[in-house]
């Protein structure tokens, strides 16, 4: 539950969504690379990356002296599996019920 809150909070910001979009296009970027695509201080980008990491949306790995950032889609998948699937299922069963109801009326 608390983790879902962190995910939604992290996603509720255009800069952080932009960072995730960049990582979706190509994974494993350094802070320097990500910073070069934003009109923002290095410290500002670091802060946003930290929020994304805390929400589990970005996974960081050390590679030599560099820290590489990877898009981690698992938290979004968890929300999808927990919520979206449930609603889809309900919609499908609602349709099935409607169909049988209509057929019974015939």
């Amino acid at each position: 539950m608390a983790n879902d809150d962190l995910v939604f909070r992290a996603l509720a910001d255009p800069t952080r969504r932009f960072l995730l979009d960049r990582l979706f296009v190509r994974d494993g970027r350094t802070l320097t690379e990500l910073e070069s695509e934003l009109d923002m201080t290095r410290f500002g980008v670091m802060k946003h990356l930290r929020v994304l990491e805390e929400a589990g949306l970005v996974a960081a790995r050390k590679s030599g002296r560099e820290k590489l950032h990877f898009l981690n889609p698992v938290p979004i998948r968890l929300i999808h599996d927990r919520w979206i699937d449930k609603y889809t299922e309900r919609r499908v069963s609602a349709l099935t019920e409607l169909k049988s109801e209509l057929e019974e009326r015939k």
Partner: protein
Amino acid sequence: MNTMTETTTQVYNVYIKAAPQAIWDAITRPEWTERFGYGGRSEYDLRPGGAYRGLTSEEMRAQGAPEVAVDGEVIEADPPRKLVQTWRMVMNSDMAEEGFTRLTYEIVERDGGVSKLTVVHELEGAPDTAGLLAGEMEDQGAGGGWSFVLSSLKTLLETGDSFVH
């Protein structure tokens, strides 16, 4: 200054309310692997050089799939913390030709009975396999790749619910 880093590696994290040993067992024991993800039994000979086979599920075989989905070899087994292995998708001939990739599982215990599972999959020279594992072929019925597998693993260990029916 070169700021470009080309990487074909995929990294996934998931926090699971379970002990490292429970996660280790779920990854390495067939009676667990058939209850999440793609639902096939995994066979591991957990020592360096030992064989690994990821089998297809009964449902997949009923649709004409071969017995073995993935093969590989154990490189390092340090239960319940670290497993390094090679990994090759053999169900599809294009992916089989891409050859062996390198897969690492890391399990770290955190506070409050929570463990962090990290999956690092090095997919150099294996673009089709990478696409499959990133979930890009889900529309074609190939499943949601690692995020789907790890999401269902977390659900199984935390609630006992299995996605595989």
